[in-house]
């Protein structure tokens, strides 16, 4: 990372806020933090289509709103479809000269449930149709808004309220769905992972996503102290541990070309990340060994794709 970043950071990040204070996010919510950074880069000429979920429910109890950009919420599974409509609608109105002739960027935002589960079809449709928009998955690895139920993005071994660890279960028994690969399979110009624990990496990727000549997909690991059962002040630390252990590699796929944007090698053992999180508390050394093995394999795969041998 850049030296002495704290000195000039305030000058490189736009000062204007688009998600303003007064919202009801939990203490230490890294999801709203990620959006705060991202929306600064998307800027004023942006329209947000948001899925039902944490970010929607913390921000818009009638008659208040935390969003200063135009914002719409319709339902849980259709943020990408609503964004498609907004993009198409603005395109024809601009062509007909009914609205000012300027670029407006459309951003669809959904949680991991709204993206990897119930909204997957609408997302795939919107990416395939090649609407010029950015889809952001804010991944806190479970249905946190409804009370920590498992999603297909919940990591292996995590105990949630619908994948509880018990005498005969280790909790979540499936491996986390690879949304990045799914998005990339649509051959869109830009796909990237990011984490608000690395704000400058995140900001760079948002810039790329905004500039992409077609749809772009951003996958933000959004640490959730409430659902992960960690102290709220540890949110940034766990985001860093996820990256440093190789659990959540930071990379981008630009025009099909993989690039690791931050190489944390030598990787820390996954145990550093898993320990201290209540959702993984029950895991035995044997489980941790398995997670270590799969994590190494995934990291090697990403390295290979990025031609880092």
């Amino acid at each position, binding site marked *: 990372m850049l030296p002495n970043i704290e000195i000039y950071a305030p000058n490189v990040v736009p000062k204007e806020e688009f998600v303003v204070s007064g919202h009801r996010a939990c203490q230490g919510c890294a999801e709203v933090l990620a959006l705060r950074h991202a929306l600064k880069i998307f800027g*004023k*000429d*942006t*329209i947000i*289509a948001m899925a039902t979920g944490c970010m*929607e*429910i913390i921000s*818009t*109890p*009638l*008659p*208040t*709103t935390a*969003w*200063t*950009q*135009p*914002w*719409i*919420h*319709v*339902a849980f*599974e*259709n943020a*990408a*479809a*609503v*964004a*498609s*409509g*907004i*993009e*198409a*609608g*603005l*395109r*024809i*109105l601009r*062509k*007909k000269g*009914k*609205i*000012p002739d300027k670029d*407006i960027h459309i951003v669809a935002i959904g949680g991991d449930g709204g993206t990897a589960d119930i909204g997957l*079809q*609408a997302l*795939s*449709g919107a990416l*395939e*149709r090649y609407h010029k928009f950015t889809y952001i998955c804010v991944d806190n690895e479970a249905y946190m808004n409804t009370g920590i139920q498992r999603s297909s993005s919940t990591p292996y071994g995590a105990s949630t309220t619908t994948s509880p660890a018990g005498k005969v279960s280790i909790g979540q028994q499936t491996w986390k769905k690879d949304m990045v690969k799914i998005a990339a399979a649509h051959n869109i110009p830009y796909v990237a992972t990011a984490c608000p624990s690395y704000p400058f990496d995140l900001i760079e990727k948002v810039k790329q996503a905004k500039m992409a000549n077609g749809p772009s997909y951003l996958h933000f690991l959004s640490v959730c102290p409430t659902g992960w059962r960690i102290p709220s002040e540890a949110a940034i630390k766990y985001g860093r541990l996820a990256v440093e252990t190789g659990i959540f590699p930071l990379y981008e796929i630009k025009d099909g070309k993989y690039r690791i944007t931050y190489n944390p090698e030598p990787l820390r053992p996954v145990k550093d990340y898993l320990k201290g999180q209540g959702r993984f508390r029950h895991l035995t050394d044997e489980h941790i060994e398995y997670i270590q093995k799969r994590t190494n394999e995934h990291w090697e795969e990403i390295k290979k794709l990025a031609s880092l041998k």
Partner: protein
Amino acid sequence: MKKGIEVSIAASEAAKLARVEAIAAYPITPQTHIVEHLSDIVANGELDAVYVTVESEHSAMSACIGTSAAGARTFTSTSAQGLELMHEILFIASALRLPIVMAVANRALSAPLSIWNDHSDVMAARDCGWIQLFCENGQEVVDTIIMAFRIAEDHRVLLPVMVNLDGFQLSHVVEPIDFPDQKDVDKFLPDYKPLYTLHPDRPLTMGAYATPELYTEAKFAQEQAIINSLPVIKEILSEYSKKFKRKYNILETYNFEKSDTVFIAMGSVNENIMTAIDTLKKDKKSCGLVKVRLFRPFPDAELAALLEKKKNVIVIDRAMPAGGMNGPVYNEVAALLRRYNIKANLFNYIVGLGGRDVLPEDFISVYDEVVKAKKGKSKEKTNYKVIGVRA
């Protein structure tokens, strides 16, 4: 000048006359010819619009919300399972007060799968907050689609409108249709001027959630909006009638004044009922018909005024009650008779499910049965009868 044309094609031509700007639709039988023709005229540049080829009806209605919220005049079309797949989003479109117009080629709901016509699709979506109009023939489809945009976009209304046309029975027949001139339509239906849109120059939040302190008020306000749309709908229908010399009203009657016994029905079945009425006339039997063109908001006062002095009212439903006491149209009429203290005998017949033919003779038999029942010679135990069912 009248032109022989398939009604589905005519429906898309009406959307073109309305200068639709955005379409998001997913193909389903029997709506397909509507969206195919729309695709054609967009591809040919005859209609300057965006066509979003969504991957499902759920996304169709979601994308329509997007285009409409952006400020574009939006049209879509579906049938049966498609209407049910977008069911969730129908309620949101009306609550967001977006003036989307949708043609529904009415079709039976699965299972058993049936691509043929009845009203089980729209009746399952009757309480979704949309204005609902029913068409009897192709001419009505064309005129109703044009009127639907005027109604939907009127700032006193701002609600989505569903234009119902019977699948196959109406959507796939070729009829002589008189198309209004583009310049007359343009005068009747000027550019859509939205009150609020999603735009950075005037940022706003759409689709916020309500706590128990506000939800009731939000829904009450929406209910007032659909109730208050009734006089506006009447006004627009009357303006259209004057301008285009074709009579439109929310309710229409046939052989009505002198008849003690009257049918109430919606959609293309009205044409067979009128044929039955003409045949009955030859036998010196007088039977009338009320065609319900507007189902939501339900024109209760107007219908009550018509039924006040009638002896027998026969309500034709085209959907099963699913364990309820009667068919959905009957239930509205029964509530109305009670509210307006009308003493007519009320009968309910369910006909033409899943495309089953229902002939003028069937309605003649119904008439004879009802007139007999009135004299106490036949007492039915069930609240409704299903015409032609092999039980």
